[in-house]
């Protein structure tokens, strides 16, 4: 029997060591009990059928141990994760829902405007009929200002109070990679053209201010009016920005709803059991 005691004692020590691999919460509850149970299993098995029975106990226990070890670690990890989620949800729930709602309304409003109703937005662009009013028309009648695009349309823009250079419309070519004076216009300094070219790399849809100098004397200035604001392009940057705002707004709406729901669901702090 001394040998059997030694074997059982060794088995117990081995199993005790193995049980240390279980997660701490499981060990806190069942470590002593599970070791006692295994010890009883070994004693009974050896008493009934000797070594083969003890070996059988070990064989069954090894597979059981491997499986339950994974399961307990998985459950502990999941439990910890859920607890962290609950903390996060409680934090979200503590946020004033009206703040989230206000942000959602702002984001949705801006998104809808930028995406659809901005003058070059998806919805408003086809109906853009606003005509640009030359700010210098009344102030400096002998000057005119061109703002051109690479498209066929030309639109104008100007900053009141600035000095502008004026050229006849015939000297402006559209539909190319830039708007430039024709070479046959000797009165246009090349420097002006180069400056213009360097400063404004023109692409389709771009708008820029073209300073036009009155070179042919009073009364020869050709005005380009009326010009359609918005040109013939969609503002894809604005549309994309609007789309992102819309998504953010919808996300905030969902967050606000979730917050309201959670505020009701986890009103009481979760106590550890």
């Amino acid at each position: 029997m001394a040998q059997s005691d030694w074997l059982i004692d060794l088995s117990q020590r081995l199993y005790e060591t193995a049980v240390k691999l279980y997660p701490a919460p499981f060990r806190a509850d069942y470590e002593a009990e599970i070791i006692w149970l295994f010890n009883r299993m070994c004693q009974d098995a050896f008493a009934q059928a000797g070594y083969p029975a003890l070996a059988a106990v070990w064989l069954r226990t090894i597979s059981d141990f491997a499986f339950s070890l994974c399961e307990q670690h998985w459950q502990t990890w999941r439990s910890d994760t859920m607890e962290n989620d609950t903390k996060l949800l409680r934090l979200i729930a503590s946020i004033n829902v009206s703040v989230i709602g206000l942000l959602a309304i702002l984001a949705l409003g801006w998104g809808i405007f930028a995406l659809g109703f901005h003058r070059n937005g998806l919805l408003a662009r086809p109906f853009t009929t606003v005509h640009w009013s030359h700010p210098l028309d009344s102030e400096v009648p002998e000057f005119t200002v061109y703002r051109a695009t690479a498209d066929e349309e030309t639109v104008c823009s100007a900053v009141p109070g600035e000095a502008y250079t004026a050229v006849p419309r015939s000297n402006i070519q559209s539909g190319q990679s830039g708007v430039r004076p024709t070479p046959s216009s000797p009165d246009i300094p090349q420097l002006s053209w180069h400056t213009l070219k360097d400063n404004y790399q023109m692409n389709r849809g771009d708008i820029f201010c073209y300073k036009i100098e009155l070179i042919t004397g009073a009364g020869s200035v050709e005005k380009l009016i009326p010009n359609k604001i918005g040109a013939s392009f969609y503002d894809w940057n604005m549309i994309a920005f609007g789309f992102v705002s819309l998504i953010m707004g919808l996300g905030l709406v969902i967050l606000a709803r979730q917050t309201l729901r959670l505020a009701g669901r986890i009103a009481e702090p979760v106590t550890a059991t």
Partner: protein
Amino acid sequence: MNQYNPLSPAQFQILLALADEERHGYGIMQEVAERSSGKMRLGPGTLYGNIKKMMAAGLIEESDKPVVLEDDDPRRRYYRLTDQGQKAAVDEARRLADAVRDAQLKNLIPRTI
């Protein structure tokens, strides 16, 4: 069918073992092995893993007054069914009985086993 059904085979066996009396872990293990003629043996990890889950689910509970025997060890804890556990066991047994009846109707197994 309640929220606990279907139970895992091990959980159902534990409920069955506790159906007639309070038992400690080793007692549950022995009862299951005897009743199933050794076909089902619960290992220590599986047994206590399921006990933990079932206690959390309210199917079983620790007995307030453990049965004290001569060879009792203070590390032993006794477990018993709760009302929920009783109901879950009954529901599971009915579910299994229905499954057996269906199998009989399909002639997968004889009408009388």
